[in-house]
């Protein structure tokens, strides 16, 4: 039985594509049901693959089509890939459930099914990015993901989203263009596209000192391309509008999942293509470290200056992406582990924040911070969930955010030369996070004379259910972090 699970990555990808086609034909409500069940099924399939990975204890290469190794197209999965896919599918499901209220308003009646087509396409590209063993397939799904993400953003037809989508498109296309150039260069030098063969070829060339410039350029191009797409400083300027003006479900998916898909691909490339020796020996990692650190600080400062709460959360995402690259740049073992743990933390926390902010925005009737006064009294669930998400971002013990912070701090000690800098960046970022999140929390809990009616739990059942599940995920992973860390550690060793 378990041996059959080996096919599930392929099944889930094909299933997503089929559902995307199906949704294009269906009416809005049916398409929603199909997409929601798809997320659920993909999550179950990913869980089965995870079980398979744990059983075999090794990475499995899964060839597709009839072409043998150097030419064919392959999937590869160990433990980290299905785990990430599982989190992606679950979070996407919860985003779609939790954002229902706003989706009903924001989607034009005739175009509802198209939204779910885009969701399915985003899911398939995330799965493909997680499972692929072929850099060109990676590129193809990067492009699919870009287009579908633009769709998720544009579906809410207000002027700002068109502008945001244009900007997002430009940044994204530059990013994927650079990635493609890197792939071409690598192919030109090595003649390979499959990750394991590429890795062997690169290691041999690097050892012999040949094509240093070409390899370094290719590595830089691919890294920078993915960094632009996930929004690393100084390429984070597309983020605020993109996340802040899309409907909360889209904001959750875009910030929590899409940018993480690219980061996860980079982690895969570091282990599976460049090899840690080459990557960390070449100095590219140091560049990531520096820009990650700058991203943390600049993102947090921008968030602190922002009066629009949605844009504030978006800038906070820029800072969190900074954390990811900061960890990747720090060290290959503990730094990488911290980065991938933070990837999950952010994937769980940011959608919670966006969904809760969406509800609070409704309750307050505005986007700006000062209009939010007393909003938590009108919508208690959303206020509580927002606070919890904020505490996780700040890194209060028992939340997932604390474990992330702790793992980053531990990683700092693996590289004593950067020890003090790393820890000061962490501390300063904590202070900045506390500053801007606390301002909102104090505001929403400040009572004002009641003008609006209070939201009851029944009126917002979808949001309540999904945010509660996200919060539970966050807290349980915060309390029982050790099993997850061990799992990720094993996963990283198989990448």
């Amino acid at each position: 039985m378990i041996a059959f699970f080996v096919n599930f990555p392929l099944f889930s990808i094909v299933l997503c594509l089929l559902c995307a086609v199906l949704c294009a034909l269906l009416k809005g409500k049916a398409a929603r049901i199909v997409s929601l069940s798809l997320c659920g099924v993909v999550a179950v399939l990913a869980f089965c693959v995870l079980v398979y990975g744990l059983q075999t204890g090794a990475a499995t290469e899964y060839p597709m089509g009839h072409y043998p190794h150097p030419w064919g197209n392959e999937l590869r999965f160990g433990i980290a890939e299905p785990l990430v896919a599982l989190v992606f599918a679950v979070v996407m499901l919860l985003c779609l459930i939790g954002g229902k209220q706003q989706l009903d308003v924001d989607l034009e009646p005739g175009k509802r099914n198209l939204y779910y087509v885009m969701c399915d396409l985003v899911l398939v590209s995330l799965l493909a990015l997680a499972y692929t063993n072929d850099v060109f397939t990676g590129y193809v799904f990067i492009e699919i993901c870009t287009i579908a993400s633009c769709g998720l953003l544009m579906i809410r037809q207000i002027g700002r989203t068109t502008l945001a989508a244009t900007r997002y498109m430009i940044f994204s296309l530059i990013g994927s263009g650079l990635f493609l150039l890197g792939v071409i260069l690598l192919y030109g030098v090595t003649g390979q596209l499959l990750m394991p063969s590429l890795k062997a070829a690169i290691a041999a060339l690097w050892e012999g000192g040949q094509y240093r410039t070409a390899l370094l350029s290719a590595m830089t191009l691919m890294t920078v391309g993915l960094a632009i797409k996930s929004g690393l400083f100084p390429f984070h300027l597309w983020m605020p509008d993109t996340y802040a003006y899309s409907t909360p479900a889209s904001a959750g998916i875009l910030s929590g999942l899409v940018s993480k898909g690219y980061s996860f691909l980079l982690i895969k490339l570091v282990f599976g293509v460049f090899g840690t020796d080459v990557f960390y020996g070449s100095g590219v990692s140091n560049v990531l470290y520096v820009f990650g650190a700058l991203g943390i600080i600049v993102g947090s400062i921008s968030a602190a200056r922002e009066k629009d709460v949605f844009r504030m959360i978006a800038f906070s995402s820029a800072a969190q992406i900074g954390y990811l690259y900061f960890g990747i740049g720090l060290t290959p073992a503990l730094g990488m582990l911290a980065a991938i743990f933070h990837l999950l933390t952010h994937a769980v926390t940011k959608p919670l924040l966006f969904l809760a902010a969406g509800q609070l925005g409704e309750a307050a009737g505005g986007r700006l911070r000062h209009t939010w006064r007393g909003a938590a009294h009108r919508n208690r669930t959303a206020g509580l969930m927002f606070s919890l998400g904020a505490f996780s971002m700040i890194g209060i013990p028992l939340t997932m955010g604390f474990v992330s912070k702790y793992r980053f701090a531990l990683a700092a000690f693996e590289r004593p030369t950067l020890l003090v800098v790393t820890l000061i960046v962490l501390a300063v970022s904590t202070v900045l996070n506390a500053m801007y999140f606390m301002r909102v929390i104090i505001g929403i809990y400040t009572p004002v004379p009641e003008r609006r009616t209070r939201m009851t739990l029944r009126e917002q059942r979808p949001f309540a259910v999904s945010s509660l599940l996200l919060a539970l995920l966050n807290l349980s992973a915060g309390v029982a972090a050790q099993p997850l860390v061990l799992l990720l550690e094993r996963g990283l060793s198989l990448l």
Partner: protein
Amino acid sequence: MAPIWLLGCILFPFAAGMLLCLLHLRSYRLLTGLMLPVILLTSLFCWAAILFCPADGAEVIRFAPNLVLLLRLDGLGRFFVGIVATLWPLTALYAVSYMRREQHPGMFFGFFTASYGATLGVAAAGNLFTMYCFYELLTLTTVPLVLQPMTRAARKATRMYFLYSIGGAAFAFAAMVFLISSGADGAFGAGGLLGAHPYGENITYLFWLFGFLGFGVKAALFPLHAWLPKAAVAPTPVTALLHAVAVVKAGAFAVIRLTYGCFGADLLRGSRAQTVALMLAAVTIVYGSAAALKETNFKRRLAYSTVANLSYILFGALLLTPAGIAAALLHMAAHACIKITSFFAAGAVRHETGRESVYELDGLGKRMPVTFVCFTVSAFALTGLPPFNGFVSKWYLLTAAAEAGGVAWVGAGALLLSALLTAIYMLTACRRAWFPDKNANLSALSGVHEAEWQMLLPMLVLTVGMLACGVFAEPILAAVRAIAAGL
């Protein structure tokens, strides 16, 4: 049995407090009728724990191999629990009368009870990680208490308080991870856990300073003290108990734990880090007293005085000698008793007359004699006049500084200067109350009378306590010496 008992002591008030918050009780009587027994019961549990709990620690949860939630009541912990468990019920009684006319009593009493649990958690923590967790919890549970008046000033003060506390904890976190990754992640031990410098001498000192300044934020160390006077906008029971005792002394307590229980006094003695820290404490002592002198708002003046007095404690602890830490603990208890009484008096004045400035105290002594007798006694004690407890603790602080010699002399000078300033800023307030200015408008005081018995009783009890601890200092002295010997 011991860990369950301790966990109960912590969780019971915390859970009860959260429940009080959620219940949204409309009846003030029911609210206080539920709150008082909870606080009293917790204090009883605590005293039982102090007297009968064995000193060995016990694990509650193991998050990761080196992140363990460990509860343990050693001598120092018992001492702090004792202070807290005595003062909390008294303040609760005071608050029942004080909060009657204020807004949102449910939120106030809920978090007031919950923060009791968090403070006990800090006191009963067996290792640095546990203490850090409860330290953060203490911040979170006390933030709503500062926010209580919900005015613009309160919101600003809350933001500042939260920011300073979280920022401090973030640096203390760095020190904690330093200790964990150096293998010093066990329970607080006598003589410290570190033993040697794992990443070189300077790195050790740097991280100790991170931890010292980080926890020092809550102990209102200059230049990180600004939140404390601002937080005086909170209702008086909060300023009195939390911002003169529980929260700020948790900061000092955490510094002592970090220094003696983790890094080890031997490792730091004579280092540059110790000199820097001693100097900072000395500067804070003089600065706090001088700022108190300049301040005209009654509660803020007392808050600045707290800033100075917390650094007395830190200064004593940072001498890194047994005599120093014993004197520091003595002052911790003495100041808790004194300052809470002063704040109670200031709160009674505000509650009865609405007056907040020191210049408006003229002639109130005759109208509120009990309040001002208590305040005057606390002023004498704070200045360090015999036979009150402030004299005993200051005496031992000075002798400890003199014994330590070297840079400690600067601190001794600061202590003397501060005593002079204390005399001025406390006694001018007393002078106005008892001997009003000739041109003061005393007719405005015609309707003023004493506060209710719930407010007077705690003051009187504490005043008697000040005298008793001053006259019969021997048992307390023996207790703190025993604790100091075990660190």
